[in-house]
């Protein structure tokens, strides 16, 4: 049973990645314009013969299905193709920049978790949650690029505490990480706080209080675990905010990273890089979902498939 479940799970993950790869391939084949022109640059005046030979070299003269199959075959081997623009393997392009973005994402997540947890635990069920909920709302609603600009003008241009741009050292990481973290902290804090408040209305809390449990014990031993369940459902959204935020924030703070690569590839129509990033994101999300599922099981012992009817009694 367990082996079968794991196999089903892995198969599901492969299907998602395959689907994303196929969609990326199909859609990007529909993009108007000749990739060879992109490769050579707008100004280049290449002869039709040269273009033809490049096309043959890249396999672009083959029928679509052949191109697709060889694309899949290369993907399986971990070969994402070569960037038109940078003339480097896509894996290298992504690999070089991955570190910067991971650093940023990890720092943002840590900051967001600390703000959200501390805020939710301190404030839930108290009068001060009103002010807190307004702060949450502002953090969720503000566009990250604007938060970045405000932080820049206060802390970099105004106070000069942090560098304006670049990626050297912890100093340069603070403002970009806070920029991404604030909206994430807003939504996470809100979900944790309402989760705690909802859990406190459950009958088992009355039972625990009737045993003499104090509020610290209630939160740590009982309600925080319940609040963690809705927070876990947000994991996908949060990772999305971290990656999407990276695109914008890396641009605002002129930091290197995957986001900059993606933006450049999109503006320049560097299709292999775009496809590579799409497949990479799909893999990230499949892994995140796997981790979230495992975390659900760890937190909530009740998760089990219920008895189902044989036929569609829906």
């Amino acid at each position, binding site marked *: 049973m367990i082996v079968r479940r794991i196999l089903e799970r892995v198969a599901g993950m492969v299907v998602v990645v395959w689907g994303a790869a196929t969609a990326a391939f199909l859609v990007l084949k529909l993009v108007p314009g000749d990739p060879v022109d992109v490769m050579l640059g707008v100004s280049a005046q290449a002869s039709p013969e040269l273009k033809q030979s490049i096309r043959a070299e890249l396999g672009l003269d083959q029928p679509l299905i052949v191109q697709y199959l060889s694309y899949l075959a290369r993907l399986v081997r971990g070969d994402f193709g070569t960037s038109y623009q940078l003339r480097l393997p896509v894996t290298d392009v992504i690999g070089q920049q991955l570190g910067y973005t991971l650093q940023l994402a990890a720092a943002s997540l840590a900051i967001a978790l600390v703000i959200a947890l501390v805020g939710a635990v301190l404030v839930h069920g108290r009068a001060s949650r009103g002010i807190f909920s307004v702060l949450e709302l502002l953090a969720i609603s503000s566009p990250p690029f604007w938060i970045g600009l405000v932080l820049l003008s206060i802390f970099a241009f105004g106070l000069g505490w942090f560098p304006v741009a670049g990626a050297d050292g912890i100093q340069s990481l603070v403002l970009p990480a806070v920029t991404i973290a604030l909206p994430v902290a807003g939504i996470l804090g809100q979900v944790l706080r309402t989760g705690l408040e909802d859990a406190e209305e459950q009958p088992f809390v009355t039972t625990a209080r009737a045993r*003499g449990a104090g509020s610290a014990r209630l939160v740590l031993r009982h309600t925080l675990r319940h609040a963690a369940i809705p927070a876990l459902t947000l994991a996908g959204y949060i990772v999305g905010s971290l990656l999407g935020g990276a695109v914008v924030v890396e641009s605002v703070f002129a930091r290197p990273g995957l986001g900059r690569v993606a933006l450049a590839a999109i503006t320049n129509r560097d299709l292999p890089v775009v496809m590579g990033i799409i497949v990479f994101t799909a893999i990230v999300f499949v892994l995140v979902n796997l981790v979230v599922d495992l975390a659900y099981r760890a937190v909530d012992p009740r998760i089990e498939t219920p008895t189902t009817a044989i036929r569609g009694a829906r």
Partner: protein
Amino acid sequence: MTENREVVRVSGLTVRFGQTVVVDSVSLSVAAGECLAIVGESGSGKTLTARALLGLLPDGASVDVDELVIDGVDARSNSERDWRHLRGARVGLVSQDALVSLDPLRRVGAEVAEVIEIHGAPGSGERMPRAGIADTVTGLLARVAVPEPADRARQYPHELSGGLRQRALIASALAGEPGILIADEPTTALDVTVQAQVLDLLSRLRAAGLGIIMISHDLAVVAGVADRVAVMKDGRIVEEGTTTEVLSNPQHPYTQMLLAAAPRLGDGPFADRVAARRRSPSIEITPGGLDTAARGPLDQRESAPLLHATGLGRDFRRHDGSLRSAVDDVSLTVHAGASIGVVGESGSGKTTLARLLLGFDDPDRGSVSLDGRDWSGVSERRRRSRRGEIQLISQDPLGSFDPRYTVARIVAEGLRGDARRRSSEKPAARIRQLLESVGLDVSLEGRRPHELSGGQRQRVAIARALASEPRILVCDEPVSALDVSIQATIIDLLDALRRDLGVALVFVSHDLAVVAQLCDEVLVMRDGRVLERGATDHVFRHPEHPFTRALVAAVPRMPSSDRHHAPDEPSR
């Protein structure tokens, strides 16, 4: 009464929310080894009274009390910190449904151990080592008769049966060895046989010297356990006395009404009781206004059955892939104007059977015919025009109403679905007539479902069902969610419909007493099979199958007026 020391003494307890008084100068006392029952309907203030004894009133409640002594401690001016020292150590709480009253994310053992972790070892208050706590937990679970207590302690609440869960909850309340246990509807969520076991456990704990305050809506449940009964209404105790006195010779009209409304086994013929109750104008019903002439009276029973089910079976797959028969080889015949009860505990297959009869689900084996024609085997398209003949009254009428609809529109949907409607009348007039016939004020027709009381909702559901002029009503626990006084009026209404309109009733219930009141014939189900069937009176008086016998024996009984017996000598 015993000379035992008092474990609770309260006088002049008043609880307010703003200007509203919800508990009004309540006084009570309980001695060690004594059980006091507080009985009342929803909104009577009984639960708030109990919570006040734990200092656990909801935010916004203000308390005035002249005297409040809990297990020898004056708790009048307790701070939250003082209350925490009392809770668990001197007073324990057992609430209704252990599935939600135990933390579902924690192991049973951890829940039982929590009191000891907080207060230390009972008596000494010293911190206990982990191993010591584990042994104590096992001992506590064994004390409340949980089998294999060490294994159960490692399981989660949802992995235990309802009865075991409730025992574990009791064990967790006993862990600090409190002098007083507050049990708030401790058996309401349980099957009747399990309920009997839990009540028995509480009796034994009381006999061992524990003081118990039991909160209940059900006089019969209380009758076997309590030494004294306090009846609450609108925040006041309207009557208090020994259980025998209150139940056999009630003084206050409200207590008399509660006793009259409570369904019970082994009473005289149903008709007498109804007739007696009809004299009170508050529960009058008006079946008039319905088109009775077209139906023919009850006693002209046609020989052909209305509904006929043979060898019904329905299987579901468990998540490990094996098959479970929810309904197995059930046959059933319903004639016009008949009333058939289907009784069983949870999981017995009675609801699945109801769905098969209604054609909401198709049987894997056997067949159902309605009015002599095939019903279970035909397509939904062909069933649709005949659906008006057989209607469902469910336990949850609110869920069966579109929340956007008004009462009039809800009932109108029944008219529209009725293909056999003689369209001589205006729909609006017909709707009013239907509302009147179920005893609803016509002024309610513009209300939305969430603005109605529980009893009104069930009446609207019945009116909608009647709109399509059904010949059979399938009632699935239609009164389980209602207070007893409301329960009685709905049962009267259903009975009147049967007698006056000749509508047949298939009445599915876990409550034997309700079925005994209403049904001529009864089927006892267990694990999807019919164990026993026959005339209701006969089956309940002389049950043959051992399970039926256990079921009947487990039903809580009130001492009847002519046969006094002391409550401290339980009959079991």
